[in-house]
């Protein structure tokens, strides 16, 4: 045993002291030659013969030295090192090839690494908190939810069941749960809010209960978080904790921020702490700038008694920390009975059903983001996989061509005694080197772009009214992503690098070296392989281009859907007066004044207001006499509150009846204007004018006084029933959306509106300005973004296949130079030569196009997932859309022709005599 250990140690030492060991060997060898010569002289030879005989007898000193080297060190390790050094030298010698291959691979692998890190961040990463696996988000579902009042946002969670899951609770049901639940070590309440904050404009505020940070398990990096002491009503002074990002933005990351004042809807609040970087709460689609205590709820929402209202089920979203060892089922049962108790202390008069409670794992915290990106990610994964495949095939093509052009070098090395295996290993090492450099470049590229990735993701989420959310989670280098990307690199290197290396190492030295020019022995095989690779690339590019075409057509169709009104020249401006303490009467007056003033401005054709732009957001359930809804969704209609003249401003025709007037106030009967879809659904074939309905069965009656045309605001949904009620008769919501139709340009219209608003109230910011077209585009952001990505990578694929065709043809032309020269010398017409060369590349191009076309059709037909995805994603576009197919075919074919023209042209312009003499 010991001797072997000594040997291993000596060999390792030998690697380092190799030079001296070889020197020793040379000395010893020389001495032994002397001894052998002496011996021969003693046998009677003359000195000259004696020496020659001795040398012969000793054998090849080169071979012996090589053996000595191998015995002294670790030959395998050293040859790998040698291969790498030799490989690097070879690559440095052809920088163009290296640059091309590395760039191509970097694009392919980089796109994948970027997507891996996004998927990793969205699907696998847990919240940056302590023991995230214990966190649960509490949600509920109920088919009849009369206990909540009306104004409940859209259901925010999906999964488990078909009934929508709702994530918000009343404050009283929250406190019942918090005070009595034993299965949870903490239950915290939080809600979202947007506030006006002086010079920072509109910022995102999160209101949290005092136990929120203890429950979630996060501490401040500077100062303190919101604590239970901040909850104690009147005694607490208003405090704010800043997000890391807002701290950087507002205070430049200075510790002096502590104790500073910021304004929240006009009220002051003292900064007491800063949250850790990358912490966003429990919902990553929502990134608060400031976190405020529940005691400031009234300031944020503008509704002083919102918390006491048992019918306000928008008060709390609840996150809980399950006690260790407690099952989800137990927690769920406990909370369910507690919520039922809370509802039964003040039951509603209308029929209702007690809600079911569900616990959702909040540790990953990304459910909302996962839902939001579920639509886009599958197609992104396919796109990057295709791009990587194209990049690999392209690089394989480059390697084949390079292998062929290096045949003379390989033949020489084989003739000098290098084995085929050794040559293969050398080539594989070079291939692996290229791939690794490309892979590393790709990963570096991906991480260089990683700060932009969350923003990129946010563009794949539809945002009907406001700006896309600023996602705050961070994408950092991560072993999973790094490992996956490197694994992918090595895997693709082996798959796509082995064949070219095998092919190149199978050189027959004699036949190659005998030729005066470095050309392959079997001319047919190499171009054949090259042609197959070019076809494969073009087929893959074809798939991408077809996908891009389908989505371009979808976007074109989305844009050409008539909106039902004239969107040109319409601009919306958002005001949030309730935040600045306006009650409903003051809001109404402001609204009236604004509309009055704007109508008299030159350049503004019409000006009016509503609560939301068009009819995009806000639903209510209606109770129409004689109409029994089968499901809850049957009674849901879009609702918006409007001022007089808004339909004129939008350009939406009034079909019958009248517009609302300034007279339609709280003292007068409740009136409404409905759209034609409403009439068709609830009063089919009847005159709806003069009919009435109610928002709650048995509640106040609302009389229909007018009918307007339908508008298509949700492109895919078609026209939904909609109700427009006079602004003063709709209690909820403090928002005003001023709608202006302008003949002047948008920027001057915006400054005009801002000036007039500031004349009425200098402290009231005008938040967004937006056009109906932008509104529609924001709703269809996913489609737009997927299209952008597809077009971008489609272009990359096009350029790569262009390179592939060019490379193949340029190689063929070099190989066939003498033949072409002979043909020309023998009188072949140059256009014939041009055609002959072009044919070499156009046949594989056409094959590739055909293969791509067939596989696209087969994929769409036979893979259920693709078919169902496309049928959901495309809009009024058939999956076999002829425009797309014809477009993709002709684009690729044209590209192939252009790429082939250059080498073919140079071939037919060749001077035959010069070429032949040179050869």
């Amino acid at each position, binding site marked *: 045993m010991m*001797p072997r250990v000594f*040997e291993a140690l000596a060999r390792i030492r030998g690697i380092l002291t190799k030079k001296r060991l070889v020197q020793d060997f040379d000395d010893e060898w020389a*001495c032994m030659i*002397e*001894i052998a010569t002496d011996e021969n002289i003693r046998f009677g030879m003359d000195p000259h013969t004696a020496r020659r005989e001795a040398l012969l007898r000793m054998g090849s*000193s080169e071979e012996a030295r090589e053996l000595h080297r191998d015995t002294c060190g670790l030959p395998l390790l050293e040859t790998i090192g040698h291969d790498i050094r030799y490989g690097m030298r070879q690559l440095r010698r052809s920088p163009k090839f290296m640059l091309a291959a590395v760039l191509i691979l970097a694009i392919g692998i980089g796109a994948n690494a970027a997507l891996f890190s996004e998927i990793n961040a969205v699907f696998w990463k847990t919240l940056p908190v302590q023991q995230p696996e214990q966190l649960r988000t509490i949600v509920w579902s109920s088919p009849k939810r009369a206990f909540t009042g009306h104004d409940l946002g859209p259901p925010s969670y999906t999964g488990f069941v078909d009934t929508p899951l709702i994530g918000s609770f009343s404050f009283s049901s929250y406190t019942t749960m918090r005070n009595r639940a034993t299965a949870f070590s903490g239950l915290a309440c939080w809600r979202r809010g947007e506030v006006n904050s002086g010079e920072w404009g509109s910022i995102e505020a999160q209101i949290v209960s005092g136990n929120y940070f203890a429950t979630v398990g996060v501490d401040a990096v500077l100062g303190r978080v919101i604590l239970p002491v901040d909850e104690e009503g009147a005694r607490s002074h208003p405090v704010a904790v800043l997000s890391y990002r807002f701290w950087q933005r507002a205070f430049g990351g200075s510790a002096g921020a502590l104790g500073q004042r910021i304004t929240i809807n006009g009220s002051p609040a003292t900064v007491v702490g800063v949250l850790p970087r990358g912490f966003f709460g429990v919902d990553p689609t929502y990134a608060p700038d400031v976190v405020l205590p529940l005691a400031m709820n009234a300031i944020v929402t503008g509704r002083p008694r919102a918390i006491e209202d048992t019918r306000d089920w928008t008060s709390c979203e609840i996150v809980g920390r399950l006690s260790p060892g407690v099952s989800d089922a137990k927690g769920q049962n406990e909370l369910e009975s507690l919520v039922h108790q809370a509802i039964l202390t003040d039951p509603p008069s209308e029929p209702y059903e007690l809600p079911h409670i569900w616990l959702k794992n909040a540790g990953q915290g990304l459910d909302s983001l996962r839902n939001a990106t579920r639509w886009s990610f599958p197609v992104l994964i396919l796109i990057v996989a295709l791009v990587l495949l194209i990049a690999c095939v392209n690089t394989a093509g480059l390697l084949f061509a390079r292998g062929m052009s290096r045949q003379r070098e390989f033949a020489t090395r084989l003739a000098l005694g290098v084995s085929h295996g050794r040559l293969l290993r050398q080539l594989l090492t070079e291939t692996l080197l290229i791939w690794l450099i490309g892979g590393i470049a790709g990963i570096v590229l991906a991480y260089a772009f990683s700060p932009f990735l969350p923003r990129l993701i946010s563009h794949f989420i539809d945002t009907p009214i406001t700006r896309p959310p600023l996602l705050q989670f961070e994408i950092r280098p991560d072993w999973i992503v790094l490992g996956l990307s490197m694994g992918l690199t090595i895997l693709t290197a082996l798959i796509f690098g082995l064949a070219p290396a095998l092919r190149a190492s199978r050189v027959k030295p004699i036949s190659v070296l005998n030729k005066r020019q470095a050309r392959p022995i079997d001319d047919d095989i190499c171009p054949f392989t090259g042609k197959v690779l070019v076809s494969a690339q073009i087929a893959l590019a074809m798939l991408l281009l077809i996908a891009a075409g389908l989505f371009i057509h979808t976007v074109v169709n989305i844009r050409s859907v008539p909106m039902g009104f004239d969107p040109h020249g319409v601009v919306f401006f958002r005001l949030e007066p309730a935040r600045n303490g306006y009650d409903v009467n003051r809001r109404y007056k402001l609204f009236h004044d604004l509309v009055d003033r704007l109508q008299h401005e030159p350049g503004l054709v019409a000006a009016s207001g509503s609560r939301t732009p068009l009819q995009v957001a806000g639903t209510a359930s209606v109770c129409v006499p004689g109409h029994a809804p089968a499901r809850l969704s049957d009674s849901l209609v879009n609702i918006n509150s409007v001022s007089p003249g808004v339909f004129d401003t939008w350009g939406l025709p009034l079909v019958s009846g009248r517009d609302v007037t300034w007279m339609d106030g709280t003292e007068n009967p409740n009136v409404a204007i409905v759209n034609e879809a409403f009439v068709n659904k609830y009063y089919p074939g009847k005159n709806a004018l003069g009919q009435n309905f109610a928002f709650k069965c048995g509640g106040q009656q609302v009389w229909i006084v007018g009918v307007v045309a339908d508008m298509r605001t949700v492109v895919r949904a078609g026209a939904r029933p909609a109700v427009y009620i006079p602004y003063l008769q709709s209690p909820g919501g403090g928002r005003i959306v001023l709608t202006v139709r302008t003949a002047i340009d948008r920027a001057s219209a915006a400054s005009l509106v801002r000036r007039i608003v500031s004349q009425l109230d200098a402290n009231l910011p005008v938040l967004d300005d937006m056009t109906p077209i932008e509104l529609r585009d924001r709703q269809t952001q996913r489609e737009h973004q997927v299209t952008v990505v597809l077009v971008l990578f489609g272009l990359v694929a096009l350029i790569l296949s262009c390179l592939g065709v060019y490379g193949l043809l340029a190689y063929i032309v070099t190989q066939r130079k003498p033949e072409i020269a002979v043909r020309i010398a023998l009188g072949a017409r140059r256009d014939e030569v041009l055609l002959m060369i072009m044919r070499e590349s156009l046949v594989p191009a056409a094959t590739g196009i055909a293969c791509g076309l067939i596989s696209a059709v087969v994929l769409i037909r036979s893979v259920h997932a693709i078919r169902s995805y496309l049928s959901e994603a495309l809009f009024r576009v058939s999956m076999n859309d002829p425009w797309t197919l014809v477009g993709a075919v002709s684009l690729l074919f044209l590209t192939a022709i252009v790429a082939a023209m250059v080498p073919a042209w140079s071939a037919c312009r060749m001077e035959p005599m010069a070429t032949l003499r040179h050869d």
Partner: protein
Amino acid sequence: MNKVDLLSGTLDLMVLRTLAALGPLHGWGVARRIEQISGHQLILNQGTIHASLVRLQQRRLIKGEWGTSENNRKAKFYSLTPSGRKQLDAEAENWQRIASVMEKILSVLPEEMGG
């Protein structure tokens, strides 16, 4: 003359035995003595002998020291170490056992095999 193919590992044993029997030798000497003893049935490549000497040194079974030959030539002389001697005894015994087993098997008559 037929070249005898060496079983792997046997060359090391030959070198050890030669050094044990003849005392310190240089590389050339080791090769010639083995050839002589084999009755010139073995023709050894000097490089192969040299590699064997390096290997045995690495395993600390022999040691090499520069010295002067009888003709006043500089040369590296190899000699057994204590652990080399132990190794030789163990290997030699092992080899003899194998050889005797081989001899028995090779001398078995066909009918005995069949029985």
